[in-house]
């Protein structure tokens, strides 16, 4: 055990505080702001989320209003102007859609699918994991077996099978993504809960005859949150990427609700003939979004590392 020069001398048992009294949440936020990479990540994410929410206002054209599209304007390189004078900042796709608008709307779908599936999977998985840790014994063993088996299969395979059965559609993709993710959350929180349950402050709470519910939700759960948050951030990014991949493969979202993945798929065939922008720009947007989320997740993992805490 290395000596910590910060420990107040024990003989004095002094009353000077070691650090300012702040809640764990504020401390985390402050640490995030201090990390340069995390700041970049947060800026990217905020930017993209705002762009997605404000898409109808920001987009120069509604890419799904078929009456506004002119197929003769298709496959125009970035910077050209339409007959009506609108500037195609990023070019157009084969249907004549302004790529910038298509990307903005595509962001909406990608974010919606990614975040909602992660959120539902989080609640579902965390509930199952927490229950499993609380119940213990055979129930715990069986549930964790199922979790283990599911985790030994790659997410993309599970998603493929589910989509084969369910078919196409936004709701079906969300369900498939939920199924691929819940096991991570369940396993993470169950592990944390078991560790926390052994700790002395839980014993102290039990010896004070606090109710089981009170112990679970007031003591154990808040201490399980840090690893869960880290996992959640990483999984959101992965979910967005997985959805894009599945859409690219043609079994994800239908053509009527394109996400960034589908946009990329559309442009694939034109790649070799030189019209690179149809695939490139949506891909770049997707890339920045995922990088942003992962940067935040990475920084959170360092900040919320339990060894750092005190």
């Amino acid at each position, binding site marked *: *055990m*290395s*000596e*910590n*020069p*910060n*420990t*107040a*001398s*024990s*003989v*004095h*048992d*002094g*009353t000077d*505080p*070691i*650090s300012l*009294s702040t*809640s*764990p949440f504020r401390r985390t936020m402050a640490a995030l702001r201090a990390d340069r990479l995390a700041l970049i990540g947060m800026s990217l994410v905020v930017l993209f989320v705002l762009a997605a929410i404000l898409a109808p206002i920001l987009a120069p054209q509604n890419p799904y209003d078929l009456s506004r599209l002119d197929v003769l304007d298709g496959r125009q390189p970035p910077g050209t102007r339409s007959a009506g004078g609108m500037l195609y900042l990023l070019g157009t796709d084969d249907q004549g859609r302004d790529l910038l608008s298509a990307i903005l709307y595509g962001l909406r779908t990608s974010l919606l699918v990614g975040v909602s599936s992660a959120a539902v999977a989080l609640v579902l998985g965390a509930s199952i994991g927490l229950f499993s840790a609380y119940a213990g014994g*055979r129930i715990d*063993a069986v549930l964790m077996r199922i979790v283990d088996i599911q985790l030994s299969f790659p997410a993309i395979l599970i998603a493929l099978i589910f989509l084969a059965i369910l078919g196409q559609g936004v709701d079906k993709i969300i369900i498939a993504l939920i199924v691929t993710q819940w096991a991570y959350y369940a396993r993470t929180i169950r592990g944390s809960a078991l560790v926390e349950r052994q*700790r*002395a*402050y839980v*014993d*102290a*709470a*039990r*010896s*004070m*005859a*606090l*109710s089981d519910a*009170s112990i679970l939700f007031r*003591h154990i759960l*808040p*201490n399980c949150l840090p690893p869960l948050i880290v996992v959640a951030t990483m999984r959101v990014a992965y979910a967005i990427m997985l959805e894009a991949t599945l859409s690219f493969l043609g079994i994800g979202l239908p053509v009527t609700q394109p996400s960034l993945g589908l946009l990329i798929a559309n442009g694939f065939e034109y790649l070799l003939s030189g019209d690179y922008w149809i695939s490139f720009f949506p891909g770049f947007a997707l890339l920045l979004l995922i990088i942003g989320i992962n940067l935040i997740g990475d920084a959170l993992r360092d900040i919320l590392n339990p060894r750092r*805490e*005190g």
Partner: protein
Amino acid sequence: MAEPILSISDLNTSFRVHGKWQNVVRNVSFDVHPKETVAVVGESGSGKSVTALSIMRLLSPTGARVTGRIEFEGRDLLGLPIEEMPSIRGNRIGMIFQEPMTSLNPVLRIGDQIIEVLVQHRHLTHAQARSEAARLLERVRIPSARSRLDEYPLNFSGGMRQRVVIAIALACDPRLLIADEPTTALDVTIQAQILELIKTLQEEEGMSVLFITHDMGVVAEISDRAVVMHRGEAVETGPTPQIFASPSHPYTRALVSAVPQLGSMNGLDRPLRFPRVDLVTGEIEPPPPTADTVRRDAAPLLKVEGLVTRFDVRKGFLRRTIGRIHAVEDVSLELRPGETLSLVGESGCGKSTTGRSIIRLTEPRSGTVQIDGCDVRTAGKAGLAKIRRQAQMIFQDPFESLNPRIRVGDAIAEPIVAHRLCDAHAARDKVGDLLRRVGLSASMAERFPHEFSGGQRQRVCIARALALEPRLIIADESVSALDVSVKAQVINLMLDLQERYGLGYLFISHDMAVVERISHRVAVMYLGEIVEIGPRRAIFENPQHDYTRRLMAAVPIADPTRRRPRRVGNEEIESPFRAPTYVPPNRTYWQAGEGHFVQLG
């Protein structure tokens, strides 16, 4: 006196913490002479371990800065290029550390870990190194040494691993052995074996030992000279008898008076507080006499009969029971109001499990437990809540006992609010009052646990335990993790509270000297059973059972004038793990005196 083999002058070590340099060791100077044992003693934060690591230059070259002069065998170690240190480490100076369980690489065989040192420094061939390794293991008294070379560390107990570590450190006949708290993590009887081993090897090899420790008893037992460190400085240096008999620096005086000496309570009936020492002048204030708090006429506060707690060990997919841990076997005891009964023993003896079983933190298998007349085992939820108000528990690790995310005031108020003893507003006042009672200030309620020191946190835990106004407090190794002087203060606090509120304590501890100071009655446990129980004076002045005697003999006494010749055996501490078919034998007790019972067989 001969030329010192190690001469440290003006050692300064600083660490970079959050960008700033913090001086952890300040101007420390002392010598170690041939065949001498020098103890460096201090509490946490004193810089004693850092001093040892600085000598060996094992600190991170980027995060630490070491200046000064360390003369060893005619060279200044701090002036050497860092590439030359490996030829000195393990070769001319050996070093052993505190945690035997983690000092050895778990995935390499024991033999290989010894052989690599021999090959590196003494340039032996593999075959030569192998037979030398076997010889080394025999020297540290590990039986069947040759066959054990191919085993992994997980097959060795803590004490045995420490012996292996010593064998490795001494493999190349170093002139100096630096031992950094090597016995702190070991049980008392094992500690005695290791200390004796080090002493014997030192005499055989003619080497010097630099022994880092916080345990004044160990200092008194084995060292010729001592260096007392406090907050990075060497405040006093001198021959060990002098340090104990007539300490001059106020800190040393505080330290020496805070250390309980085994046998110092002979002739005293009641527990005794520790004296208070003024840290500026060094004046020692004798402890006030202790009132008699035991209510002999009242009904017993705690009555335990035939308590049994066992844990099944299950393996495999089908969860078959392959064995059982007999943690508590047929334990019976009584505690009167205002009395302190101590449970003592080493690892695995069941003392902690007994405490937990009494308030049903762990469910016992059979037996009766009555707290203030109420039956604990048959109580329903409401009954158990009521009983838990009467009996509260304080745990060992003050860092772990408090939820790090909850402010201290809320943590203390939690039981009050949960049991609906008063409303939230009144609870806040009560919290302030409780904090004052344990020597802290009411304004500290707003702080988080990480803002307190270890001793302060334990006081907070005591305040929380007092919140429900219990009559019995179970203290499970509550002072074991604290520094010596803090320990003394917390014990004084506990005695104060006992006098003021008539509290009864079930004091669970492995520290015999502390137990001697605080108890009215003592029960000695081994392998889940009580082997001897009786008034404190009877147990300490007239121990009857073999194990009690062995335990007493192993405790280091913090008085150099009472050094005893050592004759310790080689026994390991047995484990309470048994086959599923095991039936524990019936035990009988004979009476050795008034209230003093000893187990037969």
